[in-house]
């Protein structure tokens, strides 16, 4: 995974906001992962249009934070391992 990689949620998963759970969830055959706040904010931006650089910049702007890169990359590594995302 490098700075130009463009992560996208894998087609066999569906990401959606669930009002009753107040959370983003990943849906897949007969299962569901309820995402915590930061995981949801990252994944909902993984539509294949943003590079990791772009993603980090956007998150840092949205949450008025700096130094998020390591956390974002660590989560995306985990997400790729779980096959939630692939790199476009």
């Amino acid at each position, binding site marked *: 995974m490098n700075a130009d990689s463009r992560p996208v949620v894998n087609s066999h998963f569906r990401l*959606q906001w669930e009002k*009753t759970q107040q959370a983003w*969830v990943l849906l*897949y*055959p*007969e*299962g569901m992962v309820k995402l915590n706040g930061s995981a949801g904010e990252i994944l909902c931006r993984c539509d294949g249009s943003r590079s990791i650089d772009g993603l980090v910049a956007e998150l840092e702007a949205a949450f008025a934070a700096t130094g998020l890169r390591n956390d974002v990359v660590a989560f995306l590594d985990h997400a790729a391992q779980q096959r939630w995302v692939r790199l476009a």
Partner: protein
Amino acid sequence: MSRQPGPPLWLLAELTYRCPLHCVFCFNPVDFALHRDELGTEEWLRVLNEARTLGAVQCGISGGEPLLRDDLEIIVGEAHRLGYYTNLLTSGVGLDEARAARLKEAGLDHIQLSFQDSTQEVNDFLSHTRTFELKERVAKRIKEHGWPMVMNVVIHRLNIDHIGRIIEMAADLGAEYLELANAQYYSWGHLNRDQLLPSREQLVRAEAITNAWRARLGERMKIFFVVPDYYEGRPKKCMNGWGNVFLTITPDGLALPCHTARMLPGIEFPNVRDTGVREAWYDSEGFNRYRGTAWMKEPCRSCPEQENDLGGCRCQAFMLAGDAAVADPVCSKSPDHGVVEQTVAHAQQNGPTAQPLVFRNPRESERLARPF
């Protein structure tokens, strides 16, 4: 129960008890033929709506064989529109190209296809039909439409020794997930238990073969192997807790905490024909009866593991011990555990059992006319 239960995240819509197959381990009630009054299309659409409002998000569409309902596409379409993730649980019988295309258009997300065995002989024998080749064709069709596919094979004494070939077949057909679900001994499976419960030796060998295939296939196909709880010594946390996340609606409209609970005597479960889904889930006596831990007797009441397993399965307690409110007899701490030990001991013997297999069909159902 002081804590407000969470929403029913999982809705299982059993559209019909009718089925072209006659599987000997079917979990539909033994007296299914006495419950023919199916909900209509509009009633199903209302149930989908009400459950979605409560927070249900996974929708299993099951039966019987749900493809026998002409309005399946309408029901799937509405479930999709409401934002459910839709799972069709099917034998594949009736899934021709035209219906597959219509279901795709309706927004169906996933198909779970059941197989009985890797060989035509055993598949067709166990389902009492000639369906093996058809299922192979359907598996290809599912992949051509781009659906993820879960292949579900109920495992038992008569097919467990083919497990390597079953795994190979599922991988060849392109399944993303394979559920090797050891038969659960409810309903028709309970009737046929002596013929279906594998020996310990068979189980150990099957698990070793499964693990070798897992190592070989890696991420390509995820394999689930569920050990029959008779061999576990600890009870399962059935349905992840009574009335906790799981809601079943039967073909005739009963709202149940699991698909076999209608066998329990002395509980009046609500029917969605005259009760809203919210009221059924939160307020009905049936759903509140075994929520949490307050209902427990000894040894569960003082057991340090009570939160892990919630006392196991209420239906199994009723079937094996005659009382739904006692510890699940698969638990080694249950005073009724001897019943399970006896059954397990019997399964270690090799000889054929005298009793013939009972195939699920309407005639047998009417003849037996009992819930399990």
